[in-house]
């Protein structure tokens, strides 16, 4: 199971890549493996605003459905349109495929997230 360096992680198995004042958000390898083959991704509307922890979308696999939360507060400035035709890309390349990009409204949200080492430990504990 892959955990990438340089990203922030939430307890809901989302990752955040910070680029300036933008946050790219996606799901981790743990999440995609747990979900199984992803068949559909419901992405948020552009310009919609969310608080950290809010549900911004839905990820459906054949046998399960999972809410997608944003670990940071902000406004949606971009979504990954490619996921509409190729939802399976999230399985193949979870860290390379973001789901949405938010313009962050409160950088302090990042302080509540884990780094890759902490996330690795978190995942080990979850597996027990």
């Amino acid at each position: 199971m892959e955990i990438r360096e340089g990203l922030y992680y939430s307890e809901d198995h989302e990752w955040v890549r910070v680029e300036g004042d933008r946050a790219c958000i996606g799901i981790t390898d743990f999440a995609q493996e747990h979900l199984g083959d992803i068949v559909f991704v419901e992405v948020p509307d552009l310009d919609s605003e969310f608080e950290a922890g809010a549900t911004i979308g839905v990820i459906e696999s054949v046998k399960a459905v999972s809410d997608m939360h944003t670990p940071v507060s902000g406004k949606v400035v971009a979504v990954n349109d490619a996921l509409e035709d190729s939802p399976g890309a999230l399985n193949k390349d979870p860290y390379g495929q973001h789901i949405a990009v938010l313009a962050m409204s409160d950088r302090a949200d990042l302080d509540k997230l884990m780094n890759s080492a902490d996330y690795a430990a978190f995942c080990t504990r979850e597996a027990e």
Partner: protein
Amino acid sequence: MGYVPNPPRVVREMLESMGFQGIDDLFADIPAGLRLNRELNLEAPRSEQELRQELGQLAARNTAVDDRPCFLGAGAYDHYIPAVVEQLLLRSEFYTAYTPYQPELSQGILQAIFEYQTMICNLTAMDLANASMYDGGSALAEACSLACDTTRRSRVLVPDTVNPRFLDVARTYAGGGKMEIVAVPGSDGIADAAAIASLVDSRTAAVVVQHPNFYGNLETDLPAIEKAIHDQKGLLIMSVDPISLGLLKPPGAWGADIVAGEGQALGNPLSFGGPYLGFFAATEKLMRKVPGRLVGQTVDLDGQRAFVLTLQTREQHIRREKAGSNICSNEALCALAAAIYLSVAGREGLKEIAARCHRLACYARDELQKRGLRLKYQRPFFKEFAVAIRDPGAANRALLEAGIIGGYELGGALLLAFTEKRNRTEIDRLVSVLGGVDNE
């Protein structure tokens, strides 16, 4: 008489093998105070012979439409059911089966439902159809709910030319607090397009139109209604008579977003109101939100075409409290009856049946008018219309005495339905009796 196959000796041996002394040990986990320490107060058991006799007697106390021509419609219709339908439904692999969750064992049923879905799509000219809902009324209620959910609005406008029972059911479902059903008075037997257009705004999730409507009339102002709701980015929900679709322009061609109708007329008996068949179809855009089961096509490991329940993540067993609908069991066997019926009627047959219904209705209208009776509404109709009668109750009593099951009583009128089972002789007698009843 019961159906437990193990004789008492075997039951004893099974108990012993598990270390139990007696049957009561199996209920040791039920607190003594809760155990019913008496026999249920029910009548003595019956042998099959006694059952046959008693049920036969009870059934004989009802007047079946076999015995007399039935002009009752108002949401349930005495259409002809081919013998083939009844026989095939007795195949026990169909009727004793459960929901086809294990596709390897259920390809037959899954294929039948896929074919049914296809037929409904073709009849209604919609992109997709589900595997059935409980009936036309509850299907319409769920259509309203879906419209509210997908538009994120809560008002649904329903003309009172829609079946009043459908409206009742939609109102009950609205008790969940997620939608508001607003009835809009009709105008001379059809929906009032101007009134609807004036009420449609950005809070309107959908407008419902039943076509032909409850009074049998074609909703001739449909185009205006469709424009009004779509201009405001709401949805058009249509409830339709499936038999009429052998003749009439289908809802998809009218721009309907959701279709929810009563499918009883397709191969299902009157059965005192149930089980019936709610058919439900929608545009592709709504695919991932439609309620109910969906059968999809795929392949197996050997590349063979196969069918499977799909998009199950919409449903209650996966989405649970986030599901759009709680529907689990549906009306699968009734849908199968409809599919067999449509296969037997076929492309030409359904057209002929629809044309025959309309032809007989027109004949009845002409004959009634010759006798000085007039229709309540001067509107084009399909197979049903309301004839003005001063005392509909008295008229029905007179009809019953003459060996006819009359119409549905409205205020000052009788709603009469004409299916392909009716004929000239029956209609002549109907007209004769109604002509003889005291009228304005």
